[in-house]
């Protein structure tokens, strides 16, 4: 991790926040990265079109408050708690969570209370020791090895004995979860881990405290906080240092870029689980790319018109959010001249390490 983000850079708005989004490389890079950070994937074709002409700030507010961002936020939280596969919450109430989040009808604190109180979380973390340890570690960032008394108190409360836990009285598993999500460490710890995921660096302490206080006072304001982060000069600077796409982002982005749609949950799960089986998933990512390109389902993405130089230019902008260098353009045009088709051109771009970052 690259240290701490400078407070001034996080306070300052990005230089182009009021400017309309267009097709310039800087705009493409921003749209691509911010969509990944908000929706967990690259933009769909309709989303590219809809963004054109909107001011960056307006686009950020609309996207952060939309359903795609709510879905991605919820999925990432499920993954954080390892509530996946057989442990994925499947009741109607949980299926409705993204829509509720998008309508601001469910607060962060209440979502966490429901998730951690659910049968799915309980099954994932069976027994008092595991359950209380995971609650303390994952909701509050407490290291139980240093807080043995707190752990033991939590275990007594989990087992139904009246106990004081984190300074509050309770006598059940439900009390334990409620006390944890109402604890003063809940918001700072949540914001810190989400900030680090976005910036690969620590937030400035004062700003973290301010944002945590705001979230505590208004538990529905998470989208506003993330808009402020992504609209900052610090985020603009971050775009210059690409981060690796997680396997989850890669799968969703590949579907968006080649098939023009999102994967359904089963499609996503099958690909993600296979990628998780490798210490370096890139070779299998390349296999998935080849499968899609060979399948006939990516024909819309393969369609190209214009002269070879224009096609190469457009492909680089589309998938790497930058124009090709002269040498790259020449090499790709030459290869097209030797008979290479669009399939090979796309396969080279998408399997290259540059596409694996954003």
């Amino acid at each position: 991790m690259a240290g701490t983000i400078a407070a001034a850079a996080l306070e300052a708005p990005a230089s182009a926040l009021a400017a309309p989004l267009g097709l310039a490389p800087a705009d493409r890079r921003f749209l691509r990265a911010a969509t990944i950070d908000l929706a967990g994937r690259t933009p769909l074709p309709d989303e590219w079109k809809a963004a054109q002409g909107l001011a960056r700030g307006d686009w950020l507010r609309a996207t952060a408050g939309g359903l795609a961002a709510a879905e991605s936020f919820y999925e990432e939280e499920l993954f954080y708690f390892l509530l996946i596969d057989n442990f994925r919450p499947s009741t109607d109430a949980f299926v409705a969570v993204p829509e509720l989040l998008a309508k601001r009808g469910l607060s962060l604190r209440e979502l966490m209370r429901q998730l951690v109180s659910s049968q799915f979380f309980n099954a994932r973390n069976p027994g008092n020791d595991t359950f209380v340890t995971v609650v303390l570690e994952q909701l509050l960032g407490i290291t139980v090895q240093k807080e043995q008394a707190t752990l033991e108190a939590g275990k007594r409360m989990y087992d139904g004995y009246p106990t004081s836990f984190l300074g509050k009285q309770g006598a059940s598993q439900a009390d334990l979860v409620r006390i944890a999500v109402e604890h003063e460490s809940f918001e700072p710890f949540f914001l810190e881990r989400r900030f680090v995921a976005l910036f690969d660096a620590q937030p400035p302490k004062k700003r973290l405290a301010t944002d945590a206080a705001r979230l505590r006072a208004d538990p529905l304001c998470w989208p506003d906080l993330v808009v402020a982060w992504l609209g900052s000069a610090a985020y603009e600077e971050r775009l210059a240092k690409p981060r690796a796409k997680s396997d989850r982002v890669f799968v969703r982005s590949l579907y968006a870029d080649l098939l023009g749609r999102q994967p359904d949950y089963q499609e996503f799960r099958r690909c993600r689980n296979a990628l998780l089986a490798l210490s370096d998933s890139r070779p299998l990512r390349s296999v998935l790319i080849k499968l899609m390109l060979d399948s006939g389902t990516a024909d819309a993405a393969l369609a190209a018109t214009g002269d070879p130089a224009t096609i190469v230019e457009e492909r680089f902008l589309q998938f790497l959010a930058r124009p090709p260098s002269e040498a790259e353009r020449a090499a790709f045009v030459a290869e097209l001249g030797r008979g290479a088709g669009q399939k090979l051109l796309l396969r080279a771009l998408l399997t290259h390490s540059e596409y694996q970052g954003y």
Partner: protein
Amino acid sequence: MDARGNPTTDGVTRRGFLKTGAALAGVAALQRPLLAALAPATKTKRVVLVLFAGGVRSRDTIGTPANVPNLMRLAEKGVVFPGCRSANLGHYGASLSILTGVPEYMGIRENSRGFNPTIFEYVRKELALPASGAWLSANNGSQSVNFAYGLNKGWGAPFGANVIDGDGIFNQEFREVLGQFGAPKADGTEEYAALQRLRGSIDGGKARGAVNDEATAARVEKYILDELTSSATSAITGPGAGDAKALRVAGNILQIFRPTLTCVSLTNADVAHGSYNAYVDVIKRNDQELGRILDMVQQDAQLKDSTALFVVPEFGRDKNLNQRNGLDHGDGSDDLNKVACIAWGPDFKQGKTVDAECDTIDLCPTVAKLLGVDAPLARGRVLPRLLG
């Protein structure tokens, strides 16, 4: 514990530990020419280390030869350490300990890397091997990838192993992906050459923190495509299929990449908690797959006189059956805390049993020494009376 509560070694903070590790790595680099000069000339050029894990008692392997005829083939022509000490650190921690040479106390739901460098990192760094030179074929689910490398800054991802969990890819779930998009088509020679030229012409975005360089990634991609299109690995099913796939994949990797170090990590024997009979079936099936590897090595002119095999469980199991007619692991008995380690190779004694004290964490420094590298942070020692 360090300031953030992370476990440390011998009371040293994690940060301090990592700094020390980096310093030791520097010392190791300086000592390399000296070590090379002092290293005995060995015939061994490749090592296959099989973690016959999931908790396996010696009495169910070398104590019941009918269960493991292939393991006995190794034992008869190799060295057996019947009293190899092990620690019940949980399957993940105990297996990781063998790879790092350090007892690894991993947490309750650990799905993160250890702090210490693994044998893969020692070998790749000192021998300057590409990632195709060090592989782990595992059946550990999502924990598998954590074996690739540790968090010590002196080593890390650039020296990590290529880890593949065959049951995670060559399975029904992924077959459904193939069903959706169609079976992969093999590349023609011209097409593949053109692809490589195009990839090579792209300037930006060098892989950050990746195990493989571009060339190795391309080779691994081709290997996966070959497995999917022309191998029988995906067809392996039934109880213990995960372990069987890990061994089968390891054999294929050995033939294709000829790595300096190939490790295999098994887990299915843990079915013993619920059924002793199912546990024995897993042992028998794994022995059968081990026999395939042994046959392949012995029939390969390049491998047969240059490959050493080690087979060791991470720990044993309880002495007595539980109420379900299964075997747990927690009674503190010798059945749990002592396992049989078997070594077979061109530089080892033949048909010997060594009763001297040894430990499963000795495997890391032993493999390192055999390959002519140092393992400066490993706490084990080289297995005694091994070399012929």
